[in-house]
């Protein structure tokens, strides 16, 4: 019988078998960020050395300021930058510091640098590591002890997950983004629907997506309860990778390519579960509750059934989502802060004015540069949007970019949990286009109405 993409990569990385059905998996790529300091502490505490610092890449993101980077008033935040730099230099790990244009959110930087590749195992001490599965890789988030384990041994003890394929047929309608698609998928299977499974997104609608759009999909696999999600590599993947700094080149490229072409799931492979979706039926999606599964089409009414979530969100069953007033807009995060996202935002806000405070935080310094080269920053500024320095920012608020209690934020990030963007903050997840529409109208608006000729 044939094998799935996941099974092929898993088998190629098994170093040994342990008790209880666990495998020792080799880790090809390890991303490190400014929250990884605990693992370094644990290592030095135990007197252990780094095995393969050359397979790591470090960049600060969670705590970095989006405004004044030279003066970080909080010594603990400043300490995070300093300790990452110190740990990386002492360990011989490549590090993109704050004054390096390549710095950014780890999950934006890895793909952008060609560090993420098809067929690899990739880990990072962050749950949204699932993002990298968009290249046809097994990529998942790990805890502090596991980060230490990978640094010391370049391997991890893991148990093979079950497989779940999500087949999306048809084509997304104009104005509908991959963010809408993934919110629709999570709404369909539930926030725990993928628990214990490795997801594979397949079907014509997925094949038609750009690499950046695929990253958005895989990013939110964790919000469907799956530790990893993946998309088979194809010509879109290879075209994206070619020429990137860490991508193979010359003869290596040809050898890599012929291996990558072997990766996609065999026609006769079997999945433990399959789910089918029709892309054409998907409308712009917005979340109303405190779990990413609480997502509905923009035209829908607030449902009954989750009284605690509704109370927190200050909503009543039967209320219309469209027209709901927003207090601010956040465009950014590892879900939606890449160049394509920013282009869509610019197209919506061009010639219009933001009526609520709105920030645009690029995913990396290189995204920022590329956007500026196209003049997107000018469009944002003219529309009254704040154009900031790259990092996680208001997605999690660790750097101090917070939403005030009771305020509503139209956000392109991935989690609408209670308190995620600040104590009492009310997050409505949506696509970059929808967030841009909210910026210029001050409320939840079907962006298709603004794009209409």
């Amino acid at each position, binding site marked *: 019988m044939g094998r799935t993409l996941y099974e092929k990569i898993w088998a190629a990385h098994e*170093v040994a078998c342990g008790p209880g059905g666990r495998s020792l998996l080799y880790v090809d790529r390890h991303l490190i960020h400014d929250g990884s300091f605990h693992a370094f502490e644990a290592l030095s505490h135990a007197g252990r050395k780094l095995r393969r610092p050359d397979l790591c890449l470090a960049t600060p993101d969670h705590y970095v300021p989006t405004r004044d980077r030279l003066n970080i008033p909080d010594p603990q935040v400043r300490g995070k930058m300093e300790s990452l730099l110190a740990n990386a230099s002492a360990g011989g790990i490549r590090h993109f510091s704050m004054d390096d244009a390549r710095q950014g959110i780890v999950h934006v930087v890895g793909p952008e640098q060609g560090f993420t590749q098809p067929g690899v195992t990739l880990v990072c001490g962050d*749950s949204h590591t699932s993002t990298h599965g968009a290249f046809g890789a097994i990529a998942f988030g790990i805890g*502090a*002890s596991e980060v230490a384990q990978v640094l010391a041994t370049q391997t991890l*003890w893991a148990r093979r997950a079950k497989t779940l394929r999500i087949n999306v047929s048809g084509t997304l309608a104009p104005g509908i983004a991959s963010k809408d698609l993934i919110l629709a998928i999570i709404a369909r299977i539930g926030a725990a629907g993928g628990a214990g499974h490795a997801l594979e997104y397949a079907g014509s609608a997925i094949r038609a997506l750009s690499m950046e759009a695929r990253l958005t999909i895989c990013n939110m696999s964790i919000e469907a309860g799956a530790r990893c999600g993946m998309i088979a590599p194809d010509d879109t993947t290879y075209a994206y990778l070619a020429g990137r700094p*860490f991508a193979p080149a010359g003869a290596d490229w040809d050898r890599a390519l012929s291996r990558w072409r072997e990766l996609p799931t065999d026609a006769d492979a079997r999945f433990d579960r399959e789910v089918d979706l029709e892309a054409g039926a998907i409308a712009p999606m917005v979340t109303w509750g405190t779990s990413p599964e609480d997502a509905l089409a923009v035209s829908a009414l607030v449902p009954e059934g989750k009284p605690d979530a509704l109370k927190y969100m200050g909503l009543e069953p039967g209320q219309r989502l469209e027209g709901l007033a927003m207090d601010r807009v956040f465009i950014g995060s590892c879900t939606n802060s890449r160049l394509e996202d920013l282009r869509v935002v610019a197209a919506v806000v061009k010639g219009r004015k933001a009526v609520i405070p709105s920030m645009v935080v690029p995913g990396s310094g290189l995204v920022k540069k590329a956007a500026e080269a196209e003049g997107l920053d000018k469009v944002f500024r003219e529309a009254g949007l704040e154009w900031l320095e790259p990092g996680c920012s208001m997605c999690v608020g660790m750097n101090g970019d917070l939403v005030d209690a009771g305020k509503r934020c139209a956000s392109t990030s991935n989690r609408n949990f209670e308190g995620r963007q600040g104590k009492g903050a009310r997050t409505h997840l949506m696509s970059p286009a929808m967030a841009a529409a909210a910026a210029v109208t001050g409320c939840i608006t079907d962006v298709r109405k603004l794009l209409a000729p």
Partner: protein
Amino acid sequence: MEPFTRLEAVAAPLDIANVDTDRIIPARFLRLPRSAGYHNYLFHDLREAGGFVLDDPAYRSAKILVAAENFGCGSSREGAVWALAGAGLRAWIAPSFGDIFFENSFKNGALPVILPAPRVRQIRQLLAARPGTKLVIDLAAQTVALPEGSLEHFEVDPFRKECLLKGWDEIDLTLQHEAAIAAYEARQRSETPWLAKP
């Protein structure tokens, strides 16, 4: 890591359901280095209110915590386990645990034990009625012995069990496979050199 074989120790009852990792150690202390001693902040906000069970002299030497449903739910912070372990606790018994907290426990040499909810409630009541009561947890036999003489069986992942019994942390266990790892790396260098040299 110190092996976990048989633990005979005072057990403290914690009669609150859904104790999340934020209650075990509030997020604001996690910016501190671990050397600051996370146990100093264990249950910080609950303790501030006074009358917390671990502050009762009868439970001061407790190494076992008997908690309620969904203990350790919430964020993935391993600091929650560090705070408990730092305070000398080595095992926690509850009807259910937060997933990641459950896994993190083993990685730090601690044993989370799942027993049926009614039984756990009875144990908590018993411990509260007779402060300072000891329980005996035998990992090899997978049993918890109660003072009235009864024996409760529990399940444990064989991999986790072996690591705890031998006092291996996962890194030690892994290093036993050093030759296999080196062989894997040699193969990677020749077959997929672009992976070996990013």
